[in-house]
């Protein structure tokens, strides 16, 4: 056998082949197929007509798409702040706890293992104006939560995000916690001798030490926020009045409700580019020597 086929470099490719093959086959190839469709007006069934860049022009006129993009940005910012801060604080508090730690970790993580449909069911019930909290307050004679936050255009997006964050933040706690446990105890002991406050220890020891894992969690959040779909779809369908519409949801309704498969693919292309830019950005950071 020629040497270049048995070199360690070649062999390492052989080991990679199955995963690349299966993933290309299931995800990449049909995605490419779908990307071709963005130049057509296909409705999913009938004739396929080439329409050039018409779909892209349409996209820039599309009021709902713009709204959805805005919501995706809000969504990302919310997830980059609220659950991250809460999880950091809770994880830090947990490191100082001896008794009951296992219990807390178990509880915080628990919603993360539940199916989205189960989580949505719980919160839809709790926020139901006639049952749940609204009904409970009504029974007490208090007019609170008499309107479902999922049904008000001012709050729908945040209410959906709340449910998603409720299910997600425990995951971050666990990630940060493990990072914090890798910090050498002697650092804290030295700080104690210097008389550092709890916050100072957090700021000058914990945070720098867990930076790699912290940055990683941010990347995960940014990337996962792009195709976010389940919670919006199950809870509000993007409504009322598109006030909780996100891009993946818009794509879905174009493809499956309005049968504009070609146009839906165009939205997919935009998502794809966006993710490409983010991934490229972090790749460059990494090249520049960042430990991310």
């Amino acid at each position, binding site marked *: 056998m020629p040497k270049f086929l048995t070199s360690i470099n070649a062999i390492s490719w052989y080991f990679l082949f199955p995963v690349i093959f299966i993933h290309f086959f299931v995800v990449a190839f049909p995605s490419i*197929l779908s990307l*071709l*469709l963005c*130049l*057509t007006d*296909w*409705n*999913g*069934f*009938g*004739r*396929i*007509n*080439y329409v050039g860049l018409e779909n892209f022009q349409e996209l820039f006129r599309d009021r709902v798409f713009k709204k959805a993009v805005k919501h995706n940005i809000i969504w990302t910012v919310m997830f980059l702040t609220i659950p991250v801060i809460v999880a950091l604080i809770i994880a830090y508090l947990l490191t100082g706890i001896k008794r009951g730690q296992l219990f807390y970790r178990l509880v915080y993580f628990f919603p993360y293992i539940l199916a989205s449909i189960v989580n949505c069911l719980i919160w839809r019930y709790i926020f*139901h*104006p*006639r049952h749940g909290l609204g009904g409970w307050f009504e029974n007490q004679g208090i007019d609170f939560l*008499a*309107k*479902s936050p*999922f*049904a*008000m*255009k001012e709050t729908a997006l945040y209410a959906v995000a709340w449910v998603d964050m409720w299910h997600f933040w425990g995951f971050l706690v666990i990630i940060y916690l493990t990072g914090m446990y890798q910090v050498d105890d002697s650092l804290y002991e030295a700080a104690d001798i210097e008389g550092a406050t709890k916050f100072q220890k957090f700021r000058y020891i914990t945070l720098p030490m867990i930076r790699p894992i912290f940055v990683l969690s941010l990347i995960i959040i940014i990337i996962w926020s792009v195709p976010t779909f389940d919670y919006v779809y199950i809870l509000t*369908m993007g*409504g*009322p*009045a*598109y*006030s909780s519409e996100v891009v993946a949801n818009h794509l879905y*309704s174009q493809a*499956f*409700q*309005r*049968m*504009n498969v070609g146009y839906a693919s165009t939205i997919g292309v935009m998502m794809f580019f966006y993710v490409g830019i983010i991934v490229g950005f972090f790749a460059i950071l990494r090249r520049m020597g960042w430990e991310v």
Partner: protein
Amino acid sequence: MMNKILKIFLTFILTAFFATSTFAATKVVWWMESSADTDPTVQEMMCDAFNAEQDEVELECVFKEDINDTIRPALLSGSGPDMFDTPGASYIKIYQDAGLVKSMQEYADQYGWQDKLLGWAYNSGVFDGELYSIPKNYETMIYFYNKTLFEENGWSTPNTLEEVESLAAKIKAKGMNVYAYGSAGWQPTHEHLVGNYFNTYAGPENVYKALIGEKKWTDPEFVEAIELLRKHMVDEGYWSGDLETYYSLDWDDFNNEFATRGSAMLMIGTWGFNVTATNFGESSDDWDWNPLPILNSQAGSAPNYQLATGGTMSINASSKNADGAAKVIDWILSDKARALKVTGSLGYGAWLLPLKYTDADFDPNIDPRQKRFLTEFAEASDSGNYGYTTWTFYPNDPGVHIWKDMEVVWAGDITPLEFMEESQRLWDQARADDALVPVGKR
């Protein structure tokens, strides 16, 4: 060039899936829309009864929860059932374009289906001059009211906009909601209201002209109708008290609310007969119904019944047993008394076939309120006095827009005129794409 490569590539992939049907020769499989309440009755009175009466064709009824999601892939793949249900003509139009549904014209001629069905109902399945679908059920929008409550307060049922608004004020003064309704669980519920206001404010004549393109949807009567709906929904909170609660209530919620005096009226389709009768059966109140009040003199005379088909039946283009499927359909259409018996045991909320019923076909024990609807509607629709629902007469894209973007009007983000302009644009597009569904001559 690009065009060509794409076409070849994609059509190749598509055609590769039109595989042969896998079912045995004498067996006809029918995918029906499932509903837990009605499935056992349909199985017993339709499917089993058919199989018991003859042995040429064996009918297997499969009840599918999510038929709209599953039938599309199944048809595309060529492995679907011989017969299937759809929610309405806009779906059939798409399947017909794609060659996925079989023309039933030869069967219609052979068995004389045109004579058996109500004219408008037959026409709703005719595309390019051929019959592709038959309505399984027809329905229209009416309103129910709590008769006892109305008598107690000396209220009379409203016939004009002024009467509606003054009655609404009286009902609200009693601490009740005017109408019970909600869209949780079925977002397109909005279109029921849009259709009602189009037909009772702008009037069936104008809606007809707009449907066939002789009138613009941006004309003042339509814009005013939407503005009135916006006012009644948002400013007045006619439905369940306020917009947000309307968004949050589902079928059981609002039916309960109506039956327990949370609301005085229920503006809904005739599919509400069954649940209303059941719920009121447990209360001391009595109920009745009326055709919708006419909100504007240009909307013509009462009664204002909008035509709607609730589900259709069709034959799969790749079915090997189309002849057998046609026999099933003919069996269903051929006995009016049996058809009434089936729909009667379903509370007339399902399987109300659009046949030409006469007085003699009815069971003497039928609820008089129910019978009044059946005979009055048949009379009115046969004499050409009818309106149009959006879900039976709108093509797909404008049809989604009309309920989805209605929320945007309610939210105050766009004006009724902007809403109707977008609707008109989508209609123009659909007309240019030849995506319209049959309306029939008025």
